[in-house]
């Protein structure tokens, strides 16, 4: 047992840090630090910098652009990117549909789609959830039927994150209504420009526009839009969701928020002096840091455990629960720093040129707190994760 990073791993961390210092555009980094929304262009710019370096899809197989890094190095990389306030990779391509395509897709699908995910020429979104299929995803009702040389897909998807930017959508649709609900589902790749697709924004409680409804009205997709075998889509979805939960601990993001918290809490916002002088507030920060330190170690245990078998670990559910709770706790503390001047509402997305009311750094804090209530809901709600732990780990 040796829990220290090796010389090689330490050197790698320094290399990643230096790369971020020299290559992450200052304007993008500043938005990250402040918790302001990134534009599509911010994502494109950063992804292309990473792609040029060969670091856009570290965990992929080498032939499709992966780096061949050990799981520990991948985790160090992610931690540095997150803590360095760089934009996160767009998970829908890089972590979701990409691995599905290189694992289950045809050679033609691999060649067509994978290179365009690497440098974000194609922005993907996820067509899973439906109004009637949230946690019980397998009860989805969007249907696909074969009609000549195409599939005809109809239904409604929802909570589709950043569909407003997306070039492509991967869709779960029912191809056999007679089968057991998990056994009649297929997995499709659909061009968002196809006639019959309509995107309608959903405004979230923070006033932001991240998620959308996507309507599919007799959308015709070619036969080769199907991934793998017909009616095997549920297996691919389970594979994808297990990947989605990896990295969901977001340890580096919480570290970056704690950095920001210490910075803001050192400002004498009110006459009573900086928030950091309040021992009760410092104790709350310390308590969250303990949880985060433990989570970081737990994540390392899960990663080094997976080195041997390659199957997803039900311990990922522990990471999801704890990681989301800590993200919520840090955004809550950040909001508390500003106290009463958390109140003024500032529209996100540069929709206004009005100067901020109060403190220029305070605007995003309350919205971030409200917005982060999502993290215990998406990716399999924390209640679903508890169910997974009860069944898969405890055998209940």
């Amino acid at each position, binding site marked *: 047992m*040796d829990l220290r990073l090796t010389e090689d791993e330490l050197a790698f961390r320094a290399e990643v840090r230096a790369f971020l210092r020299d290559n992450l555009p200052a304007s993008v980094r500043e938005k990250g630090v402040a918790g302001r929304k990134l534009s599509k262009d911010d994502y494109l710019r950063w992804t292309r910098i990473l792609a040029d370096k060969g670091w856009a899809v570290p965990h992929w197989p080498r032939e499709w652009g992966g780096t061949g890094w050990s799981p520990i190095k991948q985790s160090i990389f992610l931690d540095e990117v997150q803590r360095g306030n760089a934009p996160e990779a767009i998970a829908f391509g890089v972590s979701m549909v990409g691995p599905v395509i290189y694992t289950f897709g045809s050679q033609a699908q691999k060649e067509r789609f994978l290179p365009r995910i690497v440098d974000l020429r194609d922005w993907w979104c996820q067509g899973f959830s439906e109004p009637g299929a949230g946690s019980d995803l397998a009860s989805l009702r969007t249907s696909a039927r074969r009609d000549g040389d195409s599939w005809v897909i109809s239904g409604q998807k929802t909570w589709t994150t950043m569909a407003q930017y997306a070039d492509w959508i991967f869709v779960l649709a029912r191809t056999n209504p007679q089968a057991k609900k998990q056994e009649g589902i297929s997995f499709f790749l659909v061009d968002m420009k196809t006639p019959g697709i309509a995107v309608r924004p959903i405004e979230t409680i923070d006033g932001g526009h991240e998620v959308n409804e996507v309507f599919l009205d007799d959308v015709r997709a070619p036969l080769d839009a199907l991934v793998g075998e017909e009616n095997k889509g549920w297996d691919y979805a389970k594979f994808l969701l297990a990947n989605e939960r990896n990295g969901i601990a977001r340890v580096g993001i919480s570290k970056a928020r704690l950095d920001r918290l210490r910075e803001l809490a050192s400002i004498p916002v009110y006459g009573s002096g900086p928030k950091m002088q309040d021992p009760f507030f410092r104790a709350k920060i310390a308590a969250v840091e303990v949880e985060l330190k433990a989570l970081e170690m737990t994540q390392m245990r899960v990663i080094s455990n997976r080195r041997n078998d390659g199957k997803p670990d039900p311990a990922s559910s522990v990471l999801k629960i704890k990681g989301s709770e800590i993200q919520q706790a840090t955004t809550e503390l950040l909001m508390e720093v500003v106290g009463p001047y958390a109140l003024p509402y500032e529209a996100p997305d540069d929709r206004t040129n009005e100067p901020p009311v109060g403190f220029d750094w305070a605007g995003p804090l309350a919205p971030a707190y409200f917005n982060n209530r999502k993290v215990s809901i998406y990716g399999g709600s924390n209640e679903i994760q508890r169910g997974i732990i009860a069944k898969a780990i405890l055998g209940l």
Partner: protein
Amino acid sequence: MDFELSGEQQMLRDNVARLMKDRCGFEARKGYQASPHGWSDALWREYADMGLLGAPFAEDDGGFGGGAVETMIVTEEFGKALALEPYLQTVVLCGALIKHGASPEKRAELIGKIATGELRLSFAHTERQSGYDLNDVALAARKDGAAFLLNGEKGLVGQGDSADTLIVSARLSGERRDRRGIGLFLVDANAQGVTRRGYPTQDGQRAAEIAFANVRVEPKDVLGEDALPVIERAVDETIAALCAEAVGAMSEALSMTVEYMKTRKQFGVTIGSFQALQHRAADMTVALEQARSMMYLATMMAAEEDAKERAKSISAAKVQIGRSARFIGQQAVQIHGGIGMTYEYKVGHLFKRLTMIDAAYGDADLHVRRLADQGSLFA
């Protein structure tokens, strides 16, 4: 980064686990608890024969060349079985005081005797007024020629009634709460002037209040004259071991609870089919895994030379262990229902030991406060 145990370490774990299963089942433990010592001499000899008592010491000092990982392995298994023997006092706490505080000759002499099981040590340090402050030492050491005379009282001395030798902290100079001027003295527990009052503790172990009246200590038995850093280091190592013991007790409490949920029937079904209880057990699992992670951190940092970094990690571990222990202990009793409340059943005793571990060497709130007064845990 590597969490794997070596082949030898796995063997050590298997051996201790087997010994606990064979000789320290819960019924057997009740017998040990009722004996005059409050623990088993026969098991202590087994520990010596298996090499457990010399495990964490260097071979040059008469040990078997292990370290904090070996201590973690042993104490985690002890935690599952609620072992009563004075391992923590003798091997971990006093062992560390000797390892870091004694001269090489004294070290070799004492550690050799610990390893063979001849020497049972307790650390007489805490006093009525000291609380968790390791620097608060009033017991006086007065020079008498080349020797010292000790006068004062110590309390909560773990297994102090059955120890044959005590390591006593005493003030050589300065005010009661000064960091400097605290010495360590080796005292025969039956020496003239030593009066011991042994008593049972909440967790089924024993402790003693000990009075010292003109107890004479020869120069050869002085372990150190400015010893607070050694004491702090030894306590940090002890906290790391306590974390492992707590993780053992928590994992036992959780597995007993899950087993109970699979067998206990109400309303015609096993209670494990109820989602309210499934989710509680899942939360206990999360708490256990977080605690286990911090046990690894504490183990890794126990040997850290930089006292400040070591203390930070140890405090962080103690916070997590304390909070997880409280939740898992309370919920294990809750889910067991009435049977969890009974003295005859093990789960309540796990709860009590976990509660006392949180209260030892600074509870979770104290260590949170300590961390709050230092910089970030993330460099």
